[in-house]
């Protein structure tokens, strides 16, 4: 992958997170550049979500520094450039009074001034985000009545409505069926290729990641960065990372070996 921009979106240096003397993450250094498609894998409790939370300023690191678009987190103001879809996104409260359109519109809230209401342009951007996620037909529906896969697309449309440069998704497939998952990965790849949106997502679906992603971060207290996962990710790596036996399954369609 050619890294044409010099200033990375995320520039992380020696980031550590300690709770009551126990290291959750130690000395993580990494960079994320424009246009990248990155998957983060690792065992539960390995610190993946903590890392994302520190990148977004939701958790304070014990030491180290995060720079976002070249700025220190506390000085960063252009949050609309970041689209975040958290782990529990598809597990929305069923009684929450929101139509699909209500939720997607939330993506425009931070972009407008206090004294202005939604403009025609906002409405157009919201429509566009729903179109990209193929949820226009659902716009009047209550979000609590949707399936896991539909909710997931609503949450991504909400993130897209702020016109982000980077989308960060934390295990977005929790509570989503297999067919929706495959459709979802296709959508992510499309956003990355056609819209040039940088994508970073945490996943457990090791089988899926080999196809489209550019780089792979494995997080288990420390970070291992794999620049060419198709070539270098082996089942031994996965076994070491998760502490379990991984077996090769031959994937006839793509002629890839996946674990």
């Amino acid at each position: 992958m050619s890294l044409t921009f010099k200033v990375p979106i995320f520039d992380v240096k020696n980031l550590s997170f300690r709770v009551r003397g126990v290291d959750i993450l130690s000395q993580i250094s990494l960079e994320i550049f424009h246009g990248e498609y990155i998957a983060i894998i690792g065992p539960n409790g390995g610190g993946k979500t903590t890392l994302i939370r520190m990148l977004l300023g939701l958790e304070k690191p014990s030491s180290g520094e995060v720079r976002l678009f070249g700025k220190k987190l506390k000085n960063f103001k252009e949050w609309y450039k970041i689209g975040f879809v958290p782990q529990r996104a598809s597990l929305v409260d069923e009684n929450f009074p929101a139509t699909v359109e209500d939720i997607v519109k939330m993506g425009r809230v931070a972009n407008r001034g206090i004294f202005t209401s939604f403009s025609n342009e906002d409405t157009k951007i919201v429509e566009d985000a729903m179109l990209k996620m193929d949820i226009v037909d659902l716009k009047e529906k209550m979000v609590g009545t949707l399936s896991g896969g539909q909710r997931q697309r609503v949450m991504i449309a909400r993130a897209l409505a702020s016109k982000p440069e980077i989308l960060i998704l934390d295990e977005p497939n929790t509570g989503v069926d297999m067919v929706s998952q495959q459709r979802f990965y296709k959508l992510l790849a499309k956003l990355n290729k056609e819209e040039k949106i940088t994508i970073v997502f945490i996943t457990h679906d090791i089988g899926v990641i080999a196809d489209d992603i550019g780089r792979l971060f494995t997080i288990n207290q420390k970070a291992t960065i794999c620049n060419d996962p198709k070539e270098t990710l082996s089942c031994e790596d996965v076994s070491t990372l998760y502490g379990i036996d991984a077996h090769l399954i031959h994937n006839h369609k793509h002629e890839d070996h996946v674990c």
Partner: protein
Amino acid sequence: MTEMFAYEFIQRAFVAGIFIAILASISGTFIVLKRYSLMSETLAHSALVGVAVGLVAGYNPLWVAVIVAVLSAWLIEYLRSNFSLYSDSILSIILSGSLALAVVIVSLGGAFNNSLFSYLFGSILSVSNEDVVTIAIVGTPALALLLLFSKELYFITYDEEVAKTSGIKVKLLNFLLVTVVAIIIALSIRVVGSLLIGALMVIPTSAALQYRVGFKNTILISLFFALFSVVFGMSLSFYFSLPSGATIVLTVISLFILSLIVNKK
């Protein structure tokens, strides 16, 4: 029904009541969705401390109630963010502490009388011109702030962390919300009473949520239920000489039960 409007005190009570129905139902929507329902009860009891101080010291009890309720809301938020205490424990401690303090102040001041009873359960007889003016002067900016930030507050009630990572000033807006709610509760105790105002905040929204409609319509239904309950409840209060807070709350609970039945899954 029209003959009761011949009385000036009824006109005053209705103006104050309608104002409070609007304030309580709109702020109540955010309170319920944020799971802050118990907070309205706690702040109502804190407002009672203000009433007690006002009654004993001879100040306008409504103004003192507003100040004490706001201070109490800030204390709750401070304790929540800086100590490892469960939210409902904090609310429970401040609720009972406030009530105890109010009773002690009133007893020491020798003002444990009918006047306090009206602040506990609401009284349409006792709404003065000064009260109506106070409700209008303080309530209007409170409502304006709520409406101005309604989209941001809605986003925060949906998902606080996502709102934060979108650049919304979550801490500041939470602080603003509890301040406005404290003000609204303190203003409401004249008409609804401190023991019953929590119900006017929480029940119209809880009933509206049964209809499973979008945010705007939920607020509108909640507003309608609150207005109907205040108007109907105050009329009952007038004709049967009952405390207005009680009749208002019983009306809104009837609407809630009706909503539950109509929307049974």
